[in-house]
């Protein structure tokens, strides 16, 4: 059993989307190293409520690293210092007694702050709505084994499909670009036979929506890949570029 931690937290507080926010400093005591980062924030919030101060708002849900709801900048890093880890799976044993931790919301024009550490990631949903699917109605599906998909093709499609939609890629990118997110979704379908019928339209529509949401441009610094809690590779961005060129130059679909 490691010793308990006493920490100083500098947390971004902002009452609503249009309010001016500021950092507030809080102290938390006797934090168990076995706690998750969010449990540490729970502890802070319970203390704040007891003192009559409004608790810090932060998004979270499954707390097992799969739903993609949680996410914050912890000491300047998306989801904190551990690679391949969501905020809810970050444990306090990664910090030292006496540490000061700066906690900020994701920052991007396409992710407006709603309150404290909570941002609106509706832009991601709208990008998905623009084409992140195959257009097949229920009842039309052929037998699952009718089209063989070799494991060597299914596995990379799966790897792209594991994106949580948490937004860490945008948050960590110096340009607030959403290319890794869009690249992952476009790749999943570009790699599978099911995705072929709408392949060109999908790439064009999703990129157009991405641009409309005012994300930044990719400048290939690959910070997104390092920040991604599930390790989505920047190969997906190259594939997105390729798909977009192919769709705009070679296909007969109009952008």
């Amino acid at each position: 059993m490691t010793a308990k931690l006493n920490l100083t937290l500098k947390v971004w507080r902002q009452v609503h989307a249009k309010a001016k926010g500021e950092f507030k400093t809080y102290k938390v005591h006797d934090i168990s190293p076995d706690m998750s980062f969010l449990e540490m924030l729970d502890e802070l919030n319970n203390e704040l409520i007891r003192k009559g101060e409004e608790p810090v708002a932060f998004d979270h849900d499954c707390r097992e690293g799969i739903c993609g709801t949680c996410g914050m900048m912890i000491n300047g890093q998306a989801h904190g210092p551990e690679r391949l880890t969501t905020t809810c799976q970050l444990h306090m044993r990664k910090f030292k007694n006496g540490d000061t931790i700066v906690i900020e919301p994701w920052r991007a024009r396409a992710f407006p702050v709603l309150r404290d550490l909570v941002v609106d990631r509706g832009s991601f949903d709208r990008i998905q709505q623009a084409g992140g699917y195959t257009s097949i109605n229920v009842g039309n599906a052929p037998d699952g084994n009718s089209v063989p998909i070799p494991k060597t093709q299914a596995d990379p499609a799966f790897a792209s499909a594991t994106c949580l939609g948490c937004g860490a890629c945008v948050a960590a990118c110096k340009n607030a670009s959403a290319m890794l997110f869009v690249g992952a979704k476009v790749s999943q379908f570009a790699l599978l036979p099911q995705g072929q019928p709408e392949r060109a339209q999908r790439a064009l529509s999703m990129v157009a929506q991405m641009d409309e949401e005012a994300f930044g441009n990719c400048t290939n610094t690959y910070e997104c890949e390092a920040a991604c809690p599930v390790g989505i590779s920047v190969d997906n961005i190259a594939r997105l570029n390729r798909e977009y060129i192919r769709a705009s130059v070679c296909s007969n679909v109009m952008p």
Partner: protein
Amino acid sequence: MKLDARIPSGPLDAKWDHCKNEMKLVSPTNKRKFDIIVVGTGLAGASAAASLAELGYNVKAFCFQDSPRRAHSIAAQGGINAAKNYQNDGDSVYRLFYETVKGGDFRSREANVYRLASVSGNIIDQCVAQGVPFAREYGGTLANRTFGGVQVSRTFYARGQTGQQLLLGAYGSMNRQIQLGRVKMFPRREMLDLVMVDGVARGIVVRNLVTGEYETHAAHAVLLCTGGYGNAYYLATYAKGSNVTAAWRCYKRGAAFANLCYTQIHPTCIPVTGDHQSKLTLMSESLRNDGRVWVPKNPGDLRSPNEVPDTDRDYYLERRYPSYGNMVPRDVASRAAKERCDSGYGVGSSAKAVYLDFSDAIKRDGVASIKAKYGNLFDMYAKITDEDPYASPMRIYPAIHYTMGGLWVDYNLESTIPGLFVLGEANFSDHGANRLGASALMQGLADGYFVAPYTVGHHLASRKLAKVGTDHPAFKETMYNAKDRVEKILKVNGKRTSDSFHRELGITLWDYVGMARNEAGLKKAMEKIRTLRDEFWQNVKVLGTGDSFNQNLEHAGRVADFLEFGELLARDALTRNESCGGHFREEYQTPDNDTLRDDTNFQHVAAWEYTGEGKEPIRNVEPLTFDEVKPIQRSYV
């Protein structure tokens, strides 16, 4: 209250076809005149919203999360069952049906389960067509694994993230309909009440969680796909936001709540480390395919697990259930772990854990092979516990994971309130007293893709539904009721956090309505919950205002409902004087400590009817008949 299950006539394997042929249809041009509300966007909700919109209805979908893609179906790991018999190992629709009824300890409806089994194959086809990247063999065909409680390989999977991939598939289908304008999505909305007009469900009241505004929405049918109530126990494998509020408010509007006591305890969860813990994490039971469960033979053996020689280990599942071994159903595995720990053989600092050992599998198949199968689960374990599961055995302990009980529905998935349909985990229908692994995803998607689109249409076509808009007085009245309740919570201004009430409720339920229950304990639990509920309304402290983004207020509202719900849960367990599946009453057990059913007196569904604030609810009964399957004492020995 009359419970008419509306089970179609005819032989078991023809009932669903028969039903479909008899159901009334809405003509294609008329479909656009009907509005349908779907609450919850997990597998059941998203698939229902997408399929109903594909048919041409106007759908409004609601979820409390920031995006429909985050519903907790996403956390399901292991897989989804389907009777495809791709492995040529003797699987069939009948066998899946039989094993589900048997696994459910003969407390489910035969007709429902058979329908579930018969559409299971279509689900796989649909998901593959959506681009769900299921695991494949090198030759390109779909891969399968085996799961607890069955003797064939029928589980389709996408590594340890099957729920995620299936949900993203359904979310994609729904997105397509959003883009086409047929589904309107309302995220960050919490359903606070059901609006009834002339005894029919005609709308809902929701609170916009960002602005705090109350909104009313009218429709011709309401589909509740809001998941299970396991978070009543506080420590559970559910998402933190999962709650019973929507279902509970429907109960109070007249929907019967059935079989609450059937709660599933999942055997392979990561043990509790301390009081700070906010949730429990499950690891897929597929781990039991290769892991061996054991405890030391000598109680209080303090040696590290790798130092305990085989002769001093008790592989208790293999010892007690030689034919199924580590693959016994979840309820059996969970109770066996509890039994060992209660007898003093538990391991770890809390002594509330057993070992799940992969050393034999690693020796046999190599680290790489184990990594390929379970890599993400091992990583998850290492992250949470800071221990390396490749080097020493995992420690596991059961935790609340799924609830088989839920709102009562008939064969058409319609509750006792006309026009209110309940899908997925939120209903009680298909799993009986215990759910088999990889069947939850199957049921959610079966309900949403293949059942509700027909039965909701039947409701719309066969009933005369007056034109009702949100200007109808019932909407305003219901909204004010919901608002009053929220304001009441804010006004208490006591001393305790809602979180502390939730924790205390959870401890009470776990201690008395957990893995093993008895009459005295259940009575005590009801008493304690009542006291706690009274204290809540006098001493809870919620800061902030109702007209803002206020997570503390959201949580307090959910806890308030859990405090009412918890008592009914205990009451249901108290009145079911038998043991079956996830409901284990210590008074009713076999000499080997297994469940002892009482088919003479309890071969029925218990559906609770609300009678008013402070009044005792009525226990209605729907008898279960078994024509195809003869109820036997479940045996996995």
